[in-house]
């Protein structure tokens, strides 16, 4: 047959099957009519041949044969039989479930929780770790990065930067002159796009607010092939002259939030760090820029605007070779491999570095690396990859556990249905049909679980990211609930149903014909048929052990973090940030502003004391500055930088950091008085070798700076986060600095933040209506936020642990109850010949302990191995933590005993005569 005919035949089959399914009633009627017509014609022919009507009709019916059978054959000719059977199986499965709703509810619920947890994690992992940027062909994007050996010639960096001892430096930022040279000499990638994300102050429709901004090169929109939904894009023409191009394209989110999606937004102006920029377009919804795939910056402006709107220091960064800050992305070029492109660009980079920087002796060249740019700078990877994958793995265990649980319930039920199966086999049911029947029941159960799981995923998918982000920041990212999530849920549901359904179904359908019918109630010896059930329970206990132990170590971690002594009093401390833009507040003016605000804040009723500080503690921020005690000279081969903070006069009083020697800063320390500093204990020991340092002098930043006299030594405090030990640190009064920029105000008060914040905001507005007050939170919030990830992990793992324990309890209870029911006769005999109820109870408890014990031992062995893998996420405990193990064992033994107690008591309370008569 030619291919056309084959296709035609196939199409015909599908059409016929669809018609038959869709118009089933008509099909049945047609078959009926056709056979009736046949019978009539045959009868009338027989009458014509001389038979009497009665005889003719009888013969006709004999000749045609049983209509029922023919119709069945006709249906199977159309391929309908399979579906009819499936429908029958399903109907039977539903009836079975209705008859035993408790089984169905426990099974479906545990599956729903496990599937829901898995799908939620899938959705979040996909969103955070695998969503590509919303540009056409994101897979073509390459991000330029560089590696250094730690002694590279690059010193000033603003941007992401990883350095680990022995592993060198690794960063994605370049200086603007280097970017220009790379761009000019690039013929291995498509045109290089430069971009930079930063936070700025904006006044939009009269409202001062903090906005996120992506500064972009002129080729950005063209290269990315993104077209604004309203207005125009930023073009090369906007970026020709440095400082020019006061235009902005706004995000869809900002358009909706601040302009109500009004189309007349184009041409409106906004104030951005005190400069006026004109809105020329609105990005399409879904476009999130090049940094992140999850959340879009509010504004996109030309990079050429940097010296005007985002000046850092005096010089324009567009000409400064010293500071490396621009991110570079480009599309790949057809026919050129990444390796070729990388070596060609590396060559250009070497030249660019040599021509723009003075490379000192001992300094090395950064080496260019081309990496996947399809997910932007991959910011979430660094923080979330490990915790999310750990959580996902744990939900995998939960799912396995739920499967084991349902398999166990099914096995117990299969044992109850042995007679039913035997009868069916004896009556001629094919084993395949039985297998299908049982699998249908499993699939139905899994389907219920899957639907429940989908519902959980729908509601849980945004809950998880909320647990992970800082509560006082606006988080826009929504986890997509799309076809992939749906497909994933469907697939794991199907796998699940096969996992838990196949073994019990197979065991049942393998029964010998009539075997169970011959079984009598007079079984006194135990057979080993309960084996698989008990093995499953041990497996469940093992999985629970892993999950409970996991919950234990993460709980211990947040307890340890929570009980860390931070070195200052974090309670009743309100934090808020104010960043005066350099354009309006150049050096000196900003210091005055902060002094003025400090004074005004202090005067507010309810405020006990106020101090501004450059770095808020436990916020993952830190500042370093070269620290040179008297007698030490600057040495490029030694790390001489120490942690620093520029603080207000009342800093130590406000944070309640004890001064151990000397004095705190006071009103006598002014811009014109001799320069003073305070250092902490660690710094005193580290750089002076003793804490008796009051009166000694040091220099900060560089050798030609002024001498600073140490006036006090304070206690150590944690700095960057809760995990790292207090660093050596020194403090300088901000009033003695030339320029400080953004400051974080720390307000000691017993007034609730919600009451105080508006008052403080009003004061700032009186001083400068364009100055936004941002990131208002308490120091406690800040510390809690620092523990956010750990807390989220702990909360979720504890949830998984509890779920695991309840599933195991159900499993143990089910198996023991079944075992007692099976051994009723045996127990009756034991009791009749003189066993005491206590002994019977002990026997049952012993049986369950054995099962639990095996599970516990295996579980702990595996869990210890796994804990070792996540040790970077732990704090304050070793991977081998005896208390956690002991508690885990204790809890699980209690759960096992509890679950066995009812069956054991039932066994002990049996009356010997009843037990013996038990059928």
């Amino acid at each position, binding site marked *: *047959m030619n291919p056309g005919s084959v296709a035609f035949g196939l199409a015909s089959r599908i059409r016929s099957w669809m018609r038959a399914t869709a118009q089933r009633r008509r099909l049945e009627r047609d078959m009926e*009519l056709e056979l009736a017509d046949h019978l009539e014609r045959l009868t009338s022919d027989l009458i014509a041949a001389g038979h009497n009507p009665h005889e003719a009709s009888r013969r006709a019916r004999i000749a045609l044969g049983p209509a029922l059978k023919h119709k069945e054959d006709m249906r199977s000719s159309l391929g309908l039989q399979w579906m009819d059977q499936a429908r029958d199986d399903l109907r039977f499965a539903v009836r079975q479930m209705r008859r035993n709703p408790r089984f169905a509810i426990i099974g479906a619920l545990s599956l729903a929780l496990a599937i829901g947890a898995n799908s939620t994690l899938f959705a979040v992992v996909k969103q955070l770790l695998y969503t590509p940027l919303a540009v056409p062909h994101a897979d073509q994007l390459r991000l330029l990065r560089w590696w250094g050996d730690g002694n590279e010639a690059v010193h000033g960096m603003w941007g992401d930067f990883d350095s680990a001892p022995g592993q060198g430096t690794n960063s994605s930022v370049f200086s603007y002159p280097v970017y220009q040279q790379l761009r000019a000499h690039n013929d291995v990638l498509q045109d290089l796009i430069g971009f930079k994300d930063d936070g700025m102050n904006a006044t939009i429709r009269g409202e001062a607010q903090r906005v996120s901004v992506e500064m972009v090169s002129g080729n950005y929109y063209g290269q990315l092939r993104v077209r604004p939904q309203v207005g125009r894009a930023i073009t090369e023409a906007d970026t020709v002259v440095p400082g020019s191009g006061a235009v902005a394209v706004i995000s869809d989110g900002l358009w909706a939030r601040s302009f109500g999606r009004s189309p007349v937004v184009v041409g409106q102006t906004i104030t951005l760090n005190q400069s006026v920029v004109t809105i020329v377009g609105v990005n399409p919804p879904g476009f999130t820029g090049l940094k992140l795939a999850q959340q879009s910056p509010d504004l996109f402006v030309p990079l050429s605007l940097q010296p005007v709107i985002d000046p850092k220091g005096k010089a324009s960064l567009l000409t400064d070779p010293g500071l490396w800050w621009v991110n570079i992305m480009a599309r790949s070029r057809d026919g050129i491999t990444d390796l070729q492109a990388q070596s060609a660009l590396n060559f250009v980079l070497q030249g660019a570095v040599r021509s723009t920087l003075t490379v000192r002796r001992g300094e090395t060249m950064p080496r260019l690396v081309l990496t996947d740019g399809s997910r932007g700078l991959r910011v979430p990877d660094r923080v979330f990859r490990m915790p999310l994958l750990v959580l996902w793995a744990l939900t995998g265990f939960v799912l396995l556990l739920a499967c084991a649980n349902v398999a166990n319930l099914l096995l117990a039920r299969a044992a109850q249905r042995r007679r039913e199966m035997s009868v069916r086999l004896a009556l001629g049911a094919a084993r395949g049909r039985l297998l299908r029947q049982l699998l249908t029941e499993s699939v139905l159960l899994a389907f219920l679980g899957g639907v429940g799981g989908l519902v959980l995923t729908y509601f849980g998918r945004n809950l998880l990211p909320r647990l992970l982000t800082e509560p006082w920041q606006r988080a826009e990212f929504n986890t997509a609930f799309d076809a992939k999530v749906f497909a994933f849920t469907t697939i794991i549901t199907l796998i699940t149903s096969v996992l838990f359904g196949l073994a019990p179904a197979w065991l049942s359908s393998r029964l010998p014909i009539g075997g169970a019918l011959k079984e009598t109630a007079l079984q006194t010896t135990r057979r080993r048929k309960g084996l698989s059930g008990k093995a499953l329970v041990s497996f469940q206990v093992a999985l629970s052990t892993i999950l409970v132990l996991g919950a234990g170590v993460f709980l211990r971690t947040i307890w340890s973090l929570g009980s860390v002594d931070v070195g200052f009093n974090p309670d009743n401390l309100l934090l808020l940030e104010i960043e005066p833009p350099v354009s309006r507040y150049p050096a000196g003016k900003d210091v005055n502003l902060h002094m003025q605000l400090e004074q005004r804040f202090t005067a507010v009723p309810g405020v006990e004391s106020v101090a501004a500080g450059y770095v808020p503690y436990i916020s993952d921020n830190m500042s370093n500055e070269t620290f040179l005690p008297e007698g030490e000279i600057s040495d490029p081969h030694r790390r001489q930088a120490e942690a620093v903070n520029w603080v207000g006069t009342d800093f130590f009083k406000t944070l309640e950091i004890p001064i151990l020697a000397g004095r705190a800063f006071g009103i006598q320390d002014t811009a014109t008085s001799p320069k003073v500093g305070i250092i902490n204990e660690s710094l005193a020991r580290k750089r002076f070798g003793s804490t008796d340092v009051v009166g000694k002098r040091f220099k900060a930043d560089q050798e030609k700076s002024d001498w600073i006299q140490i006036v006090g030594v304070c206690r150590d405090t944690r700095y960057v986060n809760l995990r790292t030990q207090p660093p050596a640190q020194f403090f300088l009064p901000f009033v003695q600095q030339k320029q400080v920029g953004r400051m974080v105000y720390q307000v000691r008060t017993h007034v609730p933040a919600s009451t105080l914040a508006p008052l403080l905001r009003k004061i700032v507005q009186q001083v400068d209506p364009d100055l936004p007050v941002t990131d208002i939170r308490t120091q406690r919030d800040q510390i809690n936020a620092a523990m956010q990830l750990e807390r989220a992990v702990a909360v979720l793992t504890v949830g998984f642990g509890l779920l695991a324990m309840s599933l195991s309890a159900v499993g143990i209870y089910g198996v023991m109850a079944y075992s007692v029911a099976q051994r009723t006769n045996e127990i009756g005999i034991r009791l009749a010949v003189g066993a005491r109820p206590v002994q019977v109870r002990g026997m049952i408890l012993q049986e369950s302990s054995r099962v639990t014990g095996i599970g516990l031992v295996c579980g702990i062995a595996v869990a210890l191995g796994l804990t070792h893998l996540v040790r970077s996420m732990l704090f304050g405990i070793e991977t081998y933590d005896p208390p956690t193990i002991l508690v885990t064992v204790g809890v699980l033994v209690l759960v096992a005993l509890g679950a066995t107690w009812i069956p054991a008591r039932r066994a002990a309370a049996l009356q010997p005569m009843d037990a013996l008569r038990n059928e």
Partner: protein
Amino acid sequence: MKTEKPNDVLQGTLDLLILRAVSLGPLHGYGVLLRIHQMSGEELLIQQGSLYPALYRLEHQGAITSEWGESENNRKAKYYRLTRLGRERLSEETERWERMSGIINQILRVTPKEI
């Protein structure tokens, strides 16, 4: 799931007979039966029970198509007609049958001397 049928060998033959009967003009089920009987010189009477499943199978496969229509004395009947695919299949099956029967005939005619 396929239920094994004892007359699988004959089934192909039945399909061929039906296709041939219908190739001479549209027929209803009973008509197919009569036509085959008539064409075989009143020699062959096919199993009435297996006729309809075979018709449905052929229609499902697209070899024939059916339509309700009026028959002689104003009675409604379902008429089967050969499709293009059915015609192709008829000629293929005919050819195969002829080859097969030729081979079998030859086998049956062979005398001991000829080997």
